[in-house]
């Protein structure tokens, strides 16, 4: 794996070379010291070749999307049993850290600011910033090649992985106010959102076939959580011989292995039959990935440190059917989509305790294997112009097993969620949505403490899009 970076770099260089050989407008004679003509060339092209449908007069196209919600749950419930580990690790306490879930009461979940445009004849770029009350994050920032030959396209930067169907969608694209459990608990709060590169290829056939591979840093909590070697430290203040408080620092290495990125490798395939000019569209997908590292830790006030260190792989399939009802404002449109995903975590579990101020000793060790899966099926129908209604079924943990050592599997049970939504969209730029859901978690007798495992949740979502928003891919 050490050579991977070099292979990647040289591949990239070759591809870049192939692309750069194709400047359509050759600049005139230029001396070796002349500045690069890219900007000039882009301007020239826009003038002469009359590009444009893409946001046209505004370059880059800028849009702001506001997402405002009110939600209420009848009971506070924890994460689905078995998914506290990989999904929201350390998801103790309630509230909404900065995930995209529905929080209790009013919530301005996000103001999403997007800049898209064509950089020059060779690249398109997108920058999407997510503002919440407390911080700003780069949701996506990537460049896309325009000029690679032979149906190839390279994406570089931070982006939502193209695995599955819903993963790469943004909050405002979802057909419900929240994400399916599968995305949230199998990949993590933000889905599979990573820094890296993606190469995809579209087959030269009338049948749509797209294959892609991604090399990613590996940070998504559900399949590639990474901590790396570091210090575990506690401070105790205990009486000394004279009963005066004495400060002691206990510090030692956490024992986690170092794995330099990129750590996560994924692949996907998407296939759609030739239905051009038809009101029907159908797409099937398959995907998988392997992460060289999957690490978790949990510190206790006693100074005990628990770590899980290993690797992970996942695989799944997705299906989308869309019917274009040809009615006004979404009337009679129908969408059915479903995804299934399985993941396996192979982990070394260690419980460690200080034996002196600078030594952690392993007090418990075992090898664990976690096998888990999740799926959702959802469907939305435009029953009148501007209106649609939808149903969603979430199932998490049909397989939900943790194996400790050679022991028998411990089954954490299957959790279900049933959701219905009703949307009204006055135009394609604004939408108001009412959603109600019933959650039925598997009974969790492992934790000992008795938690509610059933709840009703209602939510009201208001979503508006301000400015020039790019066309949506399928």
């Amino acid at each position: 794996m050490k050579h991977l970076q070099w292979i990647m770099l040289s591949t990239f260089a070759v591809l870049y070379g192939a692309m750069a050989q194709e400047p359509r407008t050759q600049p005139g004679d230029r001396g070796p010291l002349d500045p690069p003509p890219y900007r000039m060339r882009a301007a020239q092209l826009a003038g002469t070749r009359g590009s444009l449908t893409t946001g046209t007069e505004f370059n880059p196209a800028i849009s702001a999307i506001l997402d405002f919600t009110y939600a209420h749950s009848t009971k506070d419930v924890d994460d689905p049993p078995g998914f506290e580990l990989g999904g929201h690790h350390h998801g103790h306490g309630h509230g909404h850290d900065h995930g995209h879930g529905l929080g209790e009461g009013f919530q301005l979940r996000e103001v999403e600011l997007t800049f898209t445009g064509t950089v020059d004849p060779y690249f398109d770029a997108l920058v999407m910033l997510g503002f919440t009350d407390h911080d700003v994050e780069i949701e996506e920032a990537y460049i896309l090649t325009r000029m690679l030959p032979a149906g190839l396209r390279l994406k570089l930067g931070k982006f939502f992985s193209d695995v599955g169907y819903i993963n790469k969608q943004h909050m405002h694209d979802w057909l419900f106010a929240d994400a399916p459990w599968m995305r949230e608990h199998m990949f993590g709060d933000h889905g599979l959102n990573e820094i890296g590169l993606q190469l995809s290829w579209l087959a030269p056939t009338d049948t749509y076939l797209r294959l892609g591979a991604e090399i990613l840093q590996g940070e998504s909590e559900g399949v590639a959580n990474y901590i790396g070697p570091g210090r575990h430290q506690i401070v105790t203040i205990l009486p000394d011989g004279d009963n005066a408080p004495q400060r002691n620092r206990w510090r030692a290495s956490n024992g986690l292995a170092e794995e330099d990125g990129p750590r996560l490798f994924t692949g996907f395939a998407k296939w759609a039959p030739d239905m051009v000019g038809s009101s029907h569209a159908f797409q099937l997908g398959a995907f998988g990935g392997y992460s060289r590292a999957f690490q978790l830790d949990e510190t206790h006030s006693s100074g005990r440190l628990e770590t899980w260190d290993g690797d992970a792989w996942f695989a799944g399939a997705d299906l989308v059917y869309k019917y274009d009802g040809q009615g006004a404002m979404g009337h009679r449109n129908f969408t059915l989509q479903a995804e299934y995903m399985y993941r396996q975590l192979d982990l070394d579990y260690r419980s460690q305790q200080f034996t002196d101020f600078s030594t952690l000793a392993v007090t418990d060790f075992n090898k664990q294997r976690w096998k888990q899966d999740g799926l959702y099926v959802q469907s939305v129908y435009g029953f009148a112009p501007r209106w649609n209604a939808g149903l969603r079924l979430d199932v998490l943990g049909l397989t939900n097993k943790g194996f400790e050592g050679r022991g028998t599997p411990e089954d954490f049970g299957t959790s279900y969620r049933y959701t219905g939504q009703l949307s009204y969209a006055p135009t394609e730029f604004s939408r108001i949505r009412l959603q109600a859901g019933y959650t039925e978690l598997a009974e969790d007798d492992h934790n000992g403490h008795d938690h509610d495992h059933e709840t009703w949740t209602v939510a009201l979502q208001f979503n508006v899009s301000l400015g020039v928003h790019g066309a949506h891919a399928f």
Partner: protein
Amino acid sequence: MKAMLMIGLMAWLAGATHAEARMRVVATVSNMGMLAREVGGNAVRVNVLSPPNRDAHYLEARPSMMARLRRADLVVSVGAELEVGWLPAAIQGANNRRVQPGQPGYFEAARKVELLRDDKPADRALGDVHPQGNPHLYLDPERMAQVALALATRMGELDADNADMFRRNAEAFAAQVAERMPAWRKRVRGAPGALAYHSDMDYLLNTLGVPVLGHIEPLPGIPPTAAHLRALVKKHAGGRGVIWSVNFHPAQAGEFMARELGWPAHRLPSQIAIAGDAQAYFNMIEAWVATLESSVADTK
């Protein structure tokens, strides 16, 4: 290493593709497909993305579109943001450098003719407005003739061997238009005008010299409201005219206006069949002209 093997495999497969002799043209709508076939003759193979009974404003990008665009040598679009909701995404997903906007393989008709504009500001509060102008130029035969000539030039850049043939074909199309226009104009002379559902009929009325009496939509892309219809009825009560809507527009509002005003309502296609030729296009224009012609007779 698996990922690298996959990339290698993809690169190899990509190299295995080969070109076809005929230029592959993908047209966004069937009227543009007709023009591409008329100009390109046997040297082109044309695919159309949008079904003729669909409003091209409201399509969505589909995998099938991307597959067609993947091997295209030339995209012929209407432009002026008519296809903005789906064509950029479809092109981006097609991984085809030849048809990127800015390349010779990307052709926009709206860039080649003067567009009709209303003097409203480009504000979303005023509906689905197009800052560049009204995109529905495909219903003006004369503008289509101009586009044919520009398209011939572009096709000639891509396929120099057939450049003369493309030019001759475009000129032949322009000649057919020139031959028909005077007769059409003469037949509708004195027509009181048309009340159209959407601003897509403005080009045809404009070129025929017939007044646009108004639009059933209060603002482009916004469905008719009761208040707006009442205002239209009030304005045109006792007057004369015809009511026009395209077959993919909702029928009710036009029927309501027809009852209230006692005018004839006509609902006709604005795009020809997918494989239609110039004759089909002229027949379609002829059908619209005929509805105006009958209203001339009414007034006399």
